């Protein structure tokens, strides 16, 4: 028996068998076999996890369906004005001019002057219009200044064009305008890109964070380290699965959106590279959460704490155009903000492929920086 206690320096009697190896050649080479089987294992683990599938797929889908069906008529409500007494300028307009006014204004007749003014004070009306000879008198409320301005503008232009028509001259200048966005301006146009951004953020962040924590806690990472598998195979398989999930989400969300009336504009295909870059950014957040947290509950909490406010501050749930300025400012420094912005620009605002370049570069840069930070916290085992 060779259990000589305390003989630390005694030579080993293994003869000519080399006991020390040079560091070179010690790293296992990337194995496509290992990559494939790990990716398949992670994919199966995802599709069999009902909660994960719900939050990455059905939860954003609910938002798309709810916003897409409930808020179908976008744009602001028509301005309502009451015509008191005889307002012949408006009432005797030719039919095509009358139709144009009906698009923006709802005209009410049959109210007495007092009734009309009472409703105006309650902001049930946007204006009350009277005609005294050749003079039109419009009363508006200060309660709804946007509505008042709309009414004033529309009526002003009606008066102008009527004046020109009375002179019998052809107008020298004409203005024709059309919207650069899809004309319908439906809510679905804004909700779909927003939910793509939020959905892939949740999928990638939670996927990476919980896999990392669970595998470390349950010693799967240790088991992988005991197998001749390089770290690159493990990392790339996780990234590949998250990218595949994100593309699947993109296809489903766009598909359902189109059923609900989503109309894609010119360079919508840039949503694919945008989604891939965004996924890398959210994977880095997940890697960070998974490295810092010691339990999957903590990891999920952290991931929620990051993705949920980010969703609100990035215009994923609400259109940023209607949000206060400070939210718009914050959205400009968040990866989900860049992503949602890029998706909206290319998918519904009709901008060219170039509009996706900056968001892609920003998300990739974010991914690189956060990954670098996360690796400083990463460990294979719970200490």
């Amino acid at each position, binding site marked *: *028996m*060779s*259990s*000589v*206690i*305390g*003989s*630390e320096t*005694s030579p*080993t009697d*293994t*003869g000519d*068998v*080399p*006991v*020390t*190896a040079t*560091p070179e050649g*010690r*790293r*296992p080479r990337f*194995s496509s*076999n*290992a990559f*494939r*089987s*790990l990716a*398949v*294992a*992670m994919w*199966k*683990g995802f599709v*069999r*996890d009902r909660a994960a599938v719900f939050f990455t797929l059905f939860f954003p889908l609910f938002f798309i369906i709810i916003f897409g069906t409930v808020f179908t008529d976008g744009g602001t409500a028509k301005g309502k004005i009451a015509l008191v007494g005889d307002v012949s300028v408006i009432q005797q307009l030719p039919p095509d001019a009358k139709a144009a006014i009906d698009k923006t204004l709802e005209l009410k007749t049959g109210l007495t002057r007092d009734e009309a003014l009472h409703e105006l004070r309650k902001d049930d009306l946007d204006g009350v219009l009277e005609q005294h000879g050749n003079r039109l008198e419009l009363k508006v409320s200060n309660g709804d200044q946007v509505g008042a301005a709309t009414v004033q503008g529309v009526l002003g232009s009606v008066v102008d064009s009527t004046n020109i028509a009375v002179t019998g001259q052809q107008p020298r200048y004409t203005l024709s305008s059309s919207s650069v966005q899809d004309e319908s301006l439906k809510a679905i146009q804004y909700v779909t890109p927003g939910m793509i951004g939020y959905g892939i953020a949740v999928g990638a962040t939670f996927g990476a964070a919980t*896999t990392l924590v*669970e595998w470390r806690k*349950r*010693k*799967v990472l*240790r*088991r*992988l*380290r*005991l*197998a*001749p*598998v390089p770290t690159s195979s493990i990392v790339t398989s996780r990234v590949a699965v998250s990218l595949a999930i994100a593309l699947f989400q993109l296809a489903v969300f766009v598909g359902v959106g189109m059923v609900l009336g989503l109309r894609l504009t010119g360079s919508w295909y840039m949503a694919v590279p945008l989604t891939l870059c965004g996924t890398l950014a959210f994977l880095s957040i997940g890697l960070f959460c998974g490295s810092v947290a010691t339990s999957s509950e903590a990891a999920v909490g952290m991931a929620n704490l990051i993705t949920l406010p980010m969703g609100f501050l990035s215009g994923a749930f609400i259109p940023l155009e209607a949000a206060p300025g400070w939210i718009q400012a914050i959205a400009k420094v968040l990866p989900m903000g860049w992503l949602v912005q890029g998706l909206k620009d290319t998918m519904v605002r009709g901008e060219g492929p170039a509009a996706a370049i900056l968001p892609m570069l920003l998300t990739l840069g974010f991914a690189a920086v956060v990954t670098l930070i996360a690796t400083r916290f990463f460990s294979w085992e719970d200490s």
Partner: protein
Amino acid sequence: MTDTIEVQGLVKRYAGKAVVDDVSFTVREGEFFGLLGPNGAGKTTTLEMIEGLRRPDAGSVVLLGEAPWPRNPRLLPRIGVQLQATAFFDRLTAREQLSTFGSLYDAPAGRVDEMLELVGLADKAGTQAEKLSGGQSQRLSIACALVHDPDVVFLDEPTAALDPQARRNLWDLLREINGRGKTVVLTTHYMDEAEILCDRVAIIDEGRILRMGPPADLVRGLSAPTRISVERAALGLDDARSLPGAESAEQDATSTVITSRTPAPVLAALAERDALAGLQVRGATLEDVFLELTGRAYRA
């Protein structure tokens, strides 16, 4: 003869305290070797240093002629490590776990069914690992450690928290594995397990090896007395004391117990008197050796 494992003066300290304190032993090829000791004795840390998961603070490990630290990819395909029964991929079936682990080693696909058969889980192949019983998932984790046909198998408390049937079931499996020529290193805090399974055991406590050898030798070396008991009605107390070789005797409600270091003449005398009704002979066990070595102080 080349030893499969050679451990020399191994030391590991945590926060200044030596958890493994100058441990040395060798394991021969094909041997079933046990590290026996209470929880916290340093068994697992010793194993982890041999497997190359931890760097020793002092001492050396040679495993299959190679140094396991730092992570040595040439060594990894030749060792199988059974971890906790929870080290599985999420929501994969028993078969999928095995084929995933197998593909990490480029193991032939046929090994999966062979392993399921070996550990008796062929009928559970389609069950997700999370839904297996304690004994079943323990057997699956052993199958996962064997799927690439390693030369050396490390098992860290494989029968902890198993019911008696599952334990015996697993013992048969471990003997079968050893019978196939694998060198097996096992840690356990069950004395009976070490006694039944191991060719040699090292009794380890507070990071030090206290005694090492085949279980039978360790028990014999203790020279602890044998206790022979028969039914009380068959033998009176005075008769018992007067038997040749009897050192002492006592009686309780049901039996007369004779203590002797030379049980053979006592048994012969009992047979002569036809006083063998309810005979029980209990020799010393590894547990006695352990208690002798470590004292009986209560440990939490």
